[in-house]
């Protein structure tokens, strides 16, 4: 098991949002978390990140970028742990060829090739989101945890992004609002409702209408 929670109450500052959560995610799974906004998907993701952050990349909901830094720098942040402080600072001031060469193909694949040295504060919401994804891809690792990573992308882009993520990471856990996309992309769907896990099944066994109950009052 890569991630495992057994009958736990999850929430911020002792204020539990989710109750009695038991879930195990093993290597190689592609999990989509679905449910109404505010159901607790983000809570679950952040708990997993806290517990198992060691070799896991994170794509936060608001992209989590440094707006005054360029796309290159924001993506490069995914590799800060691989280098010493001096080399990192060197790249902050003067991006090194080797690092640009590492970052560029990832960024190009996500359609940001012409924005490499543009401050992320000047980008659209979707472009910022893809910058955060590029950062996670450069970071790599066993797994990626993504909080609505394709919320601002169109259908085509979403597929490019999801393909890129599943190529890089053997295990993918994403909160998603687009149910069709979730069914298409993931191997397993976890539905959250009323402070608990209301559904946990292989994607192949589910249909779109079978998920509707998650969004009903």
């Amino acid at each position: 098991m890569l991630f495992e929670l057994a009958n736990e109450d999850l929430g911020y500052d002792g204020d539990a949002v989710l109750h009695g959560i038991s879930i195990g995610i093993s290597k190689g799974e592609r999990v989509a978390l679905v449910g109404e906004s505010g159901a607790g998907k983000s809570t679950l993701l952040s708990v997993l990140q806290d517990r198992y952050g060691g070799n896991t990349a994170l794509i936060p909901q608001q992209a989590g970028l440094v707006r005054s830094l360029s796309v290159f720098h924001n993506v490069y942040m995914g590799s800060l742990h691989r280098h010493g402080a001096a080399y990192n600072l060197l790249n902050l001031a003067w991006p090194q060829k080797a690092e640009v060469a590492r970052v560029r193909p990832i960024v190009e694949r996500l359609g940001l090739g012409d924005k490499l040295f543009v401050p992320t504060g000047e980008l659209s919401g979707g472009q910022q989101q893809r910058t955060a994804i590029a950062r996670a891809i450069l970071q790599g690792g066993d797994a990626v945890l993504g909080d609505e990573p394709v919320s601002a992308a169109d259908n085509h882009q979403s597929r490019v992004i999801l393909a890129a993520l599943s190529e890089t990471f053997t295990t993918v856990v994403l909160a998603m609002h687009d149910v069709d996309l979730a069914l298409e992309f993931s191997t397993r769907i976890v539905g959250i409702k009323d402070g608990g896990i209301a559904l946990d099944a292989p994607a192949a066994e589910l249909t779109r209408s079978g998920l509707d109950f998650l969004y009903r009052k």
Partner: protein
Amino acid sequence: MNRLKHLVFGAALAFSAMGLPAQQVLAETFVFTAIPDENEARLRERFDKVAVYLTKTLGVETKYIPVKSYAAAVTAFRNNQVQLGWFGGLSGVRARHLVPGSEAIAQGFEDQAFETYFIVHASTGLKPSADFPAAIAGKTFTFGSKGSTSGRLMPEYYVRQNFKAAPNRIFTKVGFSGNHSKTIALVQSGAYQVGAVNFKVWENELKAGKIDPKKVSVVWKTPPYPDYQWTIRGDVETRWKAGFKAKVREALLNMKDPDLLASFPRKSFIPASNSDYKPILDVAKLIDLIS
């Protein structure tokens, strides 16, 4: 990104700047200063000439540095950043008190019997008198610099002696003009009704036509006391050579250029010793300016 480049750069530069030895050490230059008792331009002109004279006579590069206060002159002497000072009676006593081994080596001929003039604005209606003018009580009064002998120490001494009280109890307002030229200007303008001024500066400015006798005049002259002198540090003997002190003294005593002497203004320079200034030290202790 560019901005951060400047940050990294700037920080590195600022650190390197810290370690920079920005001072050029003028190890072998003999440096002197003088208390700023008059207008700076005049002092600079006078002492730059003295520096040229000493450089020639001593055969050692000599330089004058101007300072902004009496205390700064004494501090520079104490910290060995100047080795020779043209001090007043009080500042000289202070300097020698703070630097053991230092010595008064020469004074102006007139400094054996120096005087302070009490001057008044015409609106006071006060007339010159031989006795201490008790009528100055209740007026506004300005000293010169806080550290001056003729502008502070001696006048304060006579005020205390005659009124048996501190100046701020006698006068409605007590000020410190900063130097003698300013004291004259302030009393002449009426900013203060009474002032205490170095008699040499008074006579010099009178001669130069800077004083309007209709507006300001002398009411009383103090009894004579010793004042200005050249004081030298004891360790110049090791820093230059043995006998250097005597050489400096000789050079000062042999200063004969009438223009140079007139700029002080002094008739000539004569030998002096620390003991000549015992009366000044006693008065300073009496009114608690030296403890």
